[in-house]
């Protein structure tokens, strides 16, 4: 079996320097005390009610995402590279989106195949010619990063629609400060608590032109959405209203919320609702969650939607392989962060290769999200591989394949004690007047031994993420 890069321990079993202080804390804290802290964390998360609903399970199960006490620590110099790479990537993706919904020069150059964009389910022709303030489309991006092989970072996936999870970044930090306060005096951990302030500033900076004191609201699909807790949390932390579709009303291309004092204008909507459901007049007519007329108001520049409509065309897995070329094209820079090598199964040669190597590849649906509908070759049974082969052959263009990455591990508490488990990292990138990354992110950990799937819907847990300031 391959040996994995471990975040805390090097190949010779020595604790890496940036984990030294935490390693000592672990060693000097008695196991009973540690178990007590783990129970305390669980009780606290339950009481606050940070749960999420799992789709496809019976009776709208609410589940707690397990929290692990060992943080993922990122050294200062690595973070500087990551941060620069993330900013670069998101800037290029925003420029790509602007181009796709305006002149479409990128399609003229042939850098990205025309049909890949124009026939993409996530492409919104209604967005052609719409000018969002500042030319920003993905105001909030969650970029999934993994470390593989000998320790290089790779971007696994861009999330430019309604990335979630940032509430866990904040709650996990709060929990660590409660359970190990002495560590924060010893280790220079960069703060993340100001994220809601940055988000609010960012949203206000993209208000329609000429608005002095814009009103921001968070739009949620409602209490049954899996991320409702996060929507309520962010609205409360920013001090803005949490609205549902029926709370909003559009009159003369102006969006209002219904308040006890009357109709009050809204200028920026941080929407946590997919494009399809935003406006029954413009998109899915059967949407009960949206606001009739919202898209017309948006097109008229009377309200800003964050994220913009149609960002899905840039985070689609079929476009992912082209992102390094987009960076070169729009910014004339070399990409700082690696892409994972990807076979596009729409291409016959790539398809042939993939079908011959299914047992060693990861195959993903290009429009899939959340770890649903993917094949992990090395972990799959013969029968699973064969049934997936048929699905691929039925519609090869719907799939991409990637080598199974040897994701890095991080020590994690399991029943038997501390054991290495695979982790990824989702930092959040805010784009408005400028592009900013909060020094931290959501670290997800695959809890079953050997598992590479970190999605919370598939039994993943989370850790606090410590970016060191020096």
């Amino acid at each position, binding site marked *: 079996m391959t040996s994995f890069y471990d975040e805390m321990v090097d190949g010779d079993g020595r604790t890496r320097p940036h984990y030294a202080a935490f390693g000592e804390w672990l060693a000097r804290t008695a196991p009973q005390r540690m178990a007590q802290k783990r129970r305390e964390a669980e009780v606290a998360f339950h009481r*606050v*009610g940070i749960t999420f609903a799992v789709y496809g399970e019976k009776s709208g199960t609410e589940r707690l995402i397990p929290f692990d006490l060992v943080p993922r620590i990122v050294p200062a110099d690595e973070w500087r590279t990551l941060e620069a790479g993330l900013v670069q990537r998101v800037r290029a993706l925003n420029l790509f989106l602007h181009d796709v919904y305006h002149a479409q020069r990128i399609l003229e150059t042939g850098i990205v195949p025309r049909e890949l964009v124009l026939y993409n389910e996530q492409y919104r022709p209604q967005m052609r010619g719409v000018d969002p303030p500042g030319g920003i489309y993905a105001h909030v991006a969650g970029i999934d990063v993994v470390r593989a092989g000998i320790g290089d970072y790779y971007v696994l996936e861009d999330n430019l629609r309604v990335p979630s999870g940032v509430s866990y970044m904040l709650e996990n930090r709060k929990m660590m400060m409660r359970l190990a306060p002495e560590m924060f005096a010893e280790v220079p951990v960069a703060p993340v608590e100001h994220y809601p302030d940055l988000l609010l500033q960012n949203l206000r900076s993209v208000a329609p032109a000429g608005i002095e004191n814009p009103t921001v609201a968070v739009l949620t699909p409602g*209490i049954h959405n899996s991320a409702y807790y996060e929507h*309520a949390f962010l*609205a*409360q932390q920013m001090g803005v*209203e*949490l*609205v*549902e579709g*029926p*709370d909003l*009303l559009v*009159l003369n291309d102006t969006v*209002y*919320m*219904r*308040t*006890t*004092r*009357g*109709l*009050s*204008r809204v200028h920026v909507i941080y929407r946590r609702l997919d494009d399809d459901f935003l406006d029954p007049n413009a998109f899915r007519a059967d949407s009960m969650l949206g606001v009739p007329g919202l898209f017309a108001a948006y097109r008229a520049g009377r309200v800003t939607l964050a994220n913009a409509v149609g960002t899905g065309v840039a985070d689609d897995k079929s476009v992912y392989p082209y992102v390094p070329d987009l960076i070169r094209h729009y910014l004339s820079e070399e990409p700082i962060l690696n892409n994972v090598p990807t076979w596009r199964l729409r291409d016959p040669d790539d398809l042939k290769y993939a079908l011959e190597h299914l047992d060693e590849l990861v195959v993903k649906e290009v429009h899939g999200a959340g770890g649903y509908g993917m094949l992990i070759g090395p972990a799959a049974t013969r029968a699973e591989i064969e049934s997936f082969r048929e699905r691929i052959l039925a519609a090869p263009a719907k799939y991409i394949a990637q080598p199974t990455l040897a994701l890095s591990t991080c020590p994690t508490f399991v029943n038997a004690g501390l054991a290495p488990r695979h982790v990824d990292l989702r930092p959040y990138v805010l784009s408005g007047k400028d592009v900013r990354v909060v020094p931290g992110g959501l670290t997800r950990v695959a809890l079953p031994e050997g598992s590479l799937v970190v999605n919370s819907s598939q039994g993943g847990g989370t850790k606090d993420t410590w970016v060191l300031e020096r």
Partner: protein
Amino acid sequence: MLCRTAADLYWLSRHMERVDNTARLIDLAHRIALLPERPSPGLDNPSPWGRALDALGRAEDYALRHGALTPARVQQYLILDADNPSSIYAAVHAARESGRAQRGAITSEMYEELNSTWLRVRDLDFDQLSSDGLSQFLDWVKRRAGAFRGVTLGTMGRGEANEFLKLGTFLERADSGVRLLDVNFSDPRFGQRAEERSAVEYYQMSALLQSLSAFETFRRVYRDVLTPARVAELVILNQDLPRSLARCSAAIRDAVMSLATSRRSETARLSGIMAAEIAYGRIEDVLAEGLPSYLARFLDRLYKLADAIRDEFLLNTDVVTE
């Protein structure tokens, strides 16, 4: 504040107050039912359970779904029937759902109160409840409602949200106050011989005062024997009794005045008139008009006010100028 938030808070406190008052109504009917029967010849002698259903406006629904009146079946209907919006079960559930939708607008202590009450009510079993004793259960319900009021008072900020909570509480309390009075004074035997009060009358009035937690207050205020006029005066016009119609009307007016954008608004006008009429009312005039007519008029005012509150605060569509 969003209309939806205001509406949820208003209904949250209405439903919690309803929980308390339904328990008080059952308590009243239960106390009256325990009195020795002395049927008056030539008069209709409806059971207190029938009058309780009448007072809630649920007699027809009950007859349709359950038929004959039996004490146990009416109790079950008033406590556990999920399809009866006045039942304790339905009201606790509705309050908890409003609270869950507005967790950000109420305090976590308030939500924990709601949630733990709901978890207990959800698992209630009528047979168990009957064998443990009805009174014990009703006491528990009243204690839970009291705990919720206390936690609200002790943890909730004094802003707009709190005014909507108060509005819901006192509107519902006034509404059920009328219904409790109705259970009592709708007995056709009542007041037949005002001069020589019967034992039945005495016990009915004392049951009413007990269900309103007003017996001690009666003794303190009057230091005299129970008469229908005194009981009516206390329960309708007294400004000190926290469950009197006068106290409720004043609290409703205060909440409306702090919410209304203008003193000339319809809610301000209606709540002002209602509170003033009671504040300056005299029991002689009430009795001269006749209690049933007086209470019907009061209830009508409450309904009109509730409609105005809905139009002015919960569905307001005037554009706020920037």
